[in-house]
């Protein structure tokens, strides 16, 4: 009843091309942003802000980056965490060696460095395709982490290998409380998500999709394959690099290669597959699902042991959680192979016609 488009006419080109053509969508988005920017920092507890929402936002950003590469341009990559590590380490070095630069320029420059690394490892994609490429990107994952571990300059010759990050300061304001870090992360993620949404609707995004669907056909209609694929790698790595910098500076508060292992790459890949390949919204839904699921499982097992008085060993609980996690991934793939974003789309279509479906 509330969600319908009758009576909304588009009378100029700007109205025709806006991101949310429906007024209800615009209102919902504005409400969501207002909620995230104002209500959440006010009412959120420290645990929720710093242990759940901040990593969720950061991982959404990384998933967004991978989604540009895998979902839109069709290049399967298992090296996401390596690009994040590049972003984190380069940011650390900029903050350390060029202190007057400030945090935001540092993460942008770090993102550009990650984009450079992405370009280098994107070159094989011009010849290698599919799973061969996926395994080849593992080379990036291992090589980059090895370099970061071996070359002491990146770690500023720290003996332990674990570096505590500097305090973020923008215009004299130190971002120290969980709420301020959350707000900083949210702002960066919101701006970059908007940029991504516009990019995939524009010329670059359409070229990506053409290459994904059939690269030979794309080259026949005049899309330069090399440029498009490398651009996808560069943009994707830029997003991952910024996400990595935020991951180190607003969530972990340390910079260490151990945080960016292959597991993280896989988790981000899960996010886009569960959330929806080739969908901006899907990156967020997938990240929410993958970050919240382990917490829900832990709470669930706690609740079961409390109500039924069953003594559970820690190892048993973690193994059962692992099994449920894997089982749910398979389950979701079977139920909706196109991800949560597709479910959301179906729900919206149903809502439009509700309560008169015919």
């Amino acid at each position, binding site marked *: 009843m509330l969600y319908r488009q009758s009576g909304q006419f588009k009378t100029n080109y700007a109205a025709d091309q806006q991101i949310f053509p429906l007024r209800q969508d615009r209102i919902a988005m504005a409400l969501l942003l207002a909620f995230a920017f104002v209500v959440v920092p006010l009412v959120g507890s420290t645990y929720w802000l710093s242990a759940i929402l901040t990593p969720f936002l950061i991982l959404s950003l990384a998933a967004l980056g991978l989604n540009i590469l895998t979902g839109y341009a069709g290049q*399967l990559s298992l090296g996401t965490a390596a690009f994040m590590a590049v972003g984190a380490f380069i940011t650390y070095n900029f903050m350390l060696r060029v202190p007057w630069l400030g945090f935001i320029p540092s993460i942008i420059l770090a993102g550009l460095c990650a984009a450079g690394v992405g370009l280098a490892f994107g070159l*094989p994609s011009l*010849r*290698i*395709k*599919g*799973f*061969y490429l*996926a*395994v*080849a990107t*593992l*080379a990036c994952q*291992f*090589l980059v*982490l*090895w370099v970061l*571990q*071996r070359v002491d300059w990146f770690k500023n010759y720290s003996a332990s290998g674990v570096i505590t990050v500097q305090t973020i300061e923008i215009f004299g304001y130190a971002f120290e409380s969980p709420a301020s870090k959350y707000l900083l992360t949210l702002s960066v993620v919101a701006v970059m998500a908007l940029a991504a949404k516009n990019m995939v609707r524009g010329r670059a995004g359409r070229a990506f999709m053409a290459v994904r669907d*059939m*690269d*030979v*056909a794309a080259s*026949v209609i005049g899309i330069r394959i090399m440029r498009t694929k490398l651009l996808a790698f560069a943009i994707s790595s830029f997003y991952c690099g910024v996400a990595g910098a935020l991951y180190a500076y607003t969530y972990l508060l340390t910079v260490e290669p151990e945080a960016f292992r*292959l597991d993280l790459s*896989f988790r981000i*890949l*899960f996010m886009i*597959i569960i959330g929806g*390949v080739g969908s901006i919204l899907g990156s967020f839904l997938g990240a929410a699902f993958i970050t919240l699921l382990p917490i829900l499982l832990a709470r669930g097992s706690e609740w079961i042991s409390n109500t039924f008085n069953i003594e559970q060993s820690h*190892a*048993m609980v973690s*193994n*059962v*959680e*692992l*099994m449920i*996690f*894997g*089982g*749910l*991934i*398979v389950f979701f*793939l*079977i139920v909706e*192979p196109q991800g949560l974003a597709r479910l959301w789309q179906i729900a919206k279509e149903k809502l439009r016609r509700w309560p008169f479906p015919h």
Partner: protein
Amino acid sequence: MNWSFFFEVLIGGMLAGVMYSLVALGFVLIYKASGVFNFAQGAMVFFAALTFVSLLERNWNFWLAFAMTLAVMVLLSIITERLVLRPLVNQSPNTLFMATIGLTFVLEGLSQLVWGSQPHGLELGVPDVPMEWLAQKTNINISHFDVFAAAVAGILVATLALVFQKTRIGRALRAVADDHQAALSIGIPLQQIWIIVWSVAGFVALVAGLMWGARNGVQYALTFVALKALPVLILGGFESVPGAIIGGLIIGTTEKLAEVYLGPMVGGGIESWFAYVIALLFLLVRPQGLFGEKIIDRV
């Protein structure tokens, strides 16, 4: 240059490469017959080895435990086919790949839930010590165990090649690998073929698990041998059984040689990525791996 040391490294590398091939073989079998990049192969190796060693520790006879583990692997492949593969028929390869990662988690959780997560030792009765007569004659140290593992791998590959080429089931497997729909239309039961292939892959996983378990102990780290097998896999080509062996030999030797001669120059620890870079360079020349099927693009 010390030549006997060089040959020792070379032969050691080849024999280590054969160990990688053992794991890569499982990937190849499943990819050939169903087009699924089965990431769970590493977890299957771990699951099989842990089941076997736990049965052995409960005073089962060696062959009885072997048969029992094999039965478990067959059961596992039936369940996998029914619950994972069948509902996902006709989905994109990426979706199936993801499903096998989900399967990896289930298997890792299940095996540790049932058998516990403490590491086990495994004794196959072949000592992991250098062969004395060879060491005395040529000053080259080659372990008994490495030679044994290579022999097992050789027998395994020869048997698989025979089964693939000469038997009725083998012909059906190759038909399915070539074209699912054509195979279905001439009456080859796809589901049964998948069960058979996954069971054979389970058998290969068991053998690989025994070899790796005897070498490094049966523990969680065994799941990471899959990561060692991946460069072998792309180097040899996803669809080729001989490719897995040749790829293993190339990766094994270059990796060992690089570790010994190149490693000290750059500070060591290069074994985590060197194999991948080698495979990557190979792929730049031949994008489908050494023996993979040529990729033809049609619009």
